């Protein structure tokens, strides 16, 4: 039976000593406000890291393993911004900026493969001028190459290719990127509690002063108190906010991706046209990821994988690299983007790719709760900076953000049991 009790060691800052690793990058010793971050996807992990560097007392709770929701299943594309250059220059600029920052602070989880936008037909070719202007305005370096050069760089490209544009796309490992953020946060004293479900909020009147959680490691309920609670639960954001009586207009928008069983290309290959379904192939680890589609879903466990979407992905992918049709499918999977339905339109793709923060104190009269939703993994650090600034305003402190300079700890220093001080390596499954 679950035990309910107030968890006492929440207010004790656990600065973990990591001898010989030299990565503790802390922060003043002053104890600032205590903050709970719900959700350890790229957003929550980056926020926890950001707030820890600012000196807050942070607890990160996650219902499963870190990066087990939307982030883990994303495209693994380290955006250069090329995909947004025409429609959304602001997003494109931010991508380019964050792309360079991430390469600097966590090179270990990024493959600097580069990317190509390829023109297959006349329509694509006609799009070139618009594309180059967009890239130039967004500060994305480009280089137009001819058919021969494109085929030399990527021999398996569709031979019908007319020209291609080189952009600084990259590939990251989503799980390991989040693990880097979390490992750094842990080293800086953040208490990370994976397998810890939020089941309710502690509210004085309407204001939120903590969360009720059930730890699936301890098998018991706990109450975690804090000055502020941040809801970074992605597509679950709406449901979580509801528990406190707040509203977050999240519209989970699913996308199917197909992982082929080998790398078809060295670089990321995009179709040179307006972003659409199945117009990108990302070489990630031992696979090629073709993506993606976009439709709204209610079901998140698991997110459905319609078969006709798989067919479409393979067909679209084969237009870029014909070998896609004959390569075994290693896996096909769906994830749900947490898009904000501010101005609801028919297709999830049209809704802004940007992110939004909700100060529920100001919006719904529920002080102590902040929600953040939307965004891309590539720009998660920038989102965290934005949220950190908001927290600074809410707590009346003006502490500068340092995440753009501080290198992240290696992913393999993330410890699943880092938040369980009593954890000893003793038991093996019977």
């Amino acid at each position, binding site marked *: 039976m679950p035990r309910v009790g107030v968890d006492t060691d929440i207010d004790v800052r656990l600065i973990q000593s990591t001898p010989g690793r030299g990565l503790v990058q802390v922060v003043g010793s002053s104890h600032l406000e205590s903050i709970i971050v719900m959700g350890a996807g790229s957003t929550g992990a980056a926020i926890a890291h950001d707030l820890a560097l600012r000196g807050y007392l942070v607890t990160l709770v996650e219902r*499963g*393993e870190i990066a*087990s929701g939307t982030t*883990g*299943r994303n495209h693994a594309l380290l955006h250069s911004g090329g995909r947004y250059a025409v429609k959304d220059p602001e997003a494109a600029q931010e991508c380019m900026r964050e792309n360079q920052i991430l390469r600097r602070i966590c090179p*270990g*989880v*990024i*493959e*600097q*493969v*580069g990317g190509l936008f390829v023109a297959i037909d006349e329509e694509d070719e006609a799009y070139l001028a618009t594309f180059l202007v967009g890239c130039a305005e967004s500060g994305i370096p480009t280089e137009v190459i001819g058919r021969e050069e494109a085929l030399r760089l990527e021999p398996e490209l569709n031979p019908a290719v007319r020209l291609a544009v080189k*952009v*600084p796309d*990259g590939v990251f490992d*989503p*799980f*390991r990127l989040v693990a880097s953020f979390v490992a750094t946060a842990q080293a800086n004293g953040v208490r990370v509690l994976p*397998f810890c*479900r939020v089941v309710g909020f502690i509210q004085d009147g309407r204001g939120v002063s903590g969360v009720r959680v*059930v730890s*699936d*490691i301890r*098998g*018991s309920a706990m109450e975690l108190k804090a000055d502020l609670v941040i809801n970074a639960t992605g597509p679950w954001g709406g449901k979580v906010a509801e528990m406190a009586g707040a509203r977050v207009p999240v519209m989970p928008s699913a996308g199917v*991706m197909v*992982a082929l069983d080998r*790398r078809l290309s*060295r670089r990321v290959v995009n179709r040179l046209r307006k972003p659409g379904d199945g117009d990108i192939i990302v*070489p*990630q*680890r*031992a696979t090629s990821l073709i993506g993606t589609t976009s439709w709204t879903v209610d079901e*998140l*466990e*698991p997110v459905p994988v319609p078969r006709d979407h*798989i*067919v479409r992905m393979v067909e679209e992918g084969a237009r870029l690299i014909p070998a896609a*049709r*004959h*390569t*075994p*499918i*290693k*896996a096909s999977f769906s*994830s749900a983007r947490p898009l904000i339905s501010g101005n609801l339109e028919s297709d999830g793709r049209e809704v802004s790719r940007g992110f939004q923060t909700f100060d529920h104190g100001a919006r719904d009269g529920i002080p102590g709760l902040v929600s953040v939703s939307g965004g891309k993994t590539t720009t998660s650090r920038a989102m965290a900076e934005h949220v950190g600034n908001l927290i600074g305003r809410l707590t009346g402190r003006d502490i500068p953000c340092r995440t753009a300079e501080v290198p992240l700890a*290696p*992913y*393999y*220093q993330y*410890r*699943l*049991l880092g938040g*369980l001080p*009593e*954890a000893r*390596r*003793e038991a*093996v*499954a019977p």
Partner: protein
Amino acid sequence: MTKQAWKPGAPALETLSFTVRLRRGGPWRPLRHRWQNFAVTVPADYTVVELLESIKGHQDPSLAFRHSCHHGSCGTCAMKVNGLERLTCVTTVADVVKEGGHLEVEPLGHLPWVSDLVADAAPLFDNLEALGPGHVRMNGIFAGCIECGACISACPIGGPRSGYVGPAPLAAARDALVTGQAPGLGWGLLLERVDGNHGVWQCHTAFECSRACPADVDPAGAIIQLRQLLASGQAKSLAGLAMSRGPAVTGAPAAGPAPAGGAPHDHRPRREGGEGW
């Protein structure tokens, strides 16, 4: 079912009804250990991890299991399915259970048990860090390994919990030696660990690690090669050679010559240091 390329006209969607038997409990839970059965009906092409997700979502939200990328690259979702280590995100239920049958899922063995289907990969990561540091693993010579722990669970010797360095870390050490990229511990300690009481000589060539590996790393072959290198004294000279080239810059892309014959993963793209992007 055989591994095959996608073809139009493959069989239509079917469902399977069967019993899922899950290992529940954990060292810190009030109920340390029990089996729990779930009767399920799911599409036959559901992966085991999708099955677990649907159990968590619709039947028991307290079920703990690790998963992340769902396409076999993050290595979090390795579990024992019907007694064998598998990446559950690339194993469909049709592969492992028949209509009306039983499907048993347990956490990996030989690693610390955390809760339900979760085993802690920290000992594996520690040994990998010592013998083949992360940048090498993600981006370089040892890129094939996804650090899932299947080899450790499958090894009859028992992985880090028996003191054994373990198959994947030994394979990383082999790759470090053959390519001359400095391991996290430095060359001296690498040789000591690999040649020590819990190094390659503890292996009993059961080849179970290579069978279990979902990423074709072939740790058993690496261990055998390491033994030959150690017994012939070549390991020492390789390490000495690497050291005489000066301290390897960790974090930098592999700028040296292409990996020598032994490294099996050199078909994977390297970082393109020259191009900048």
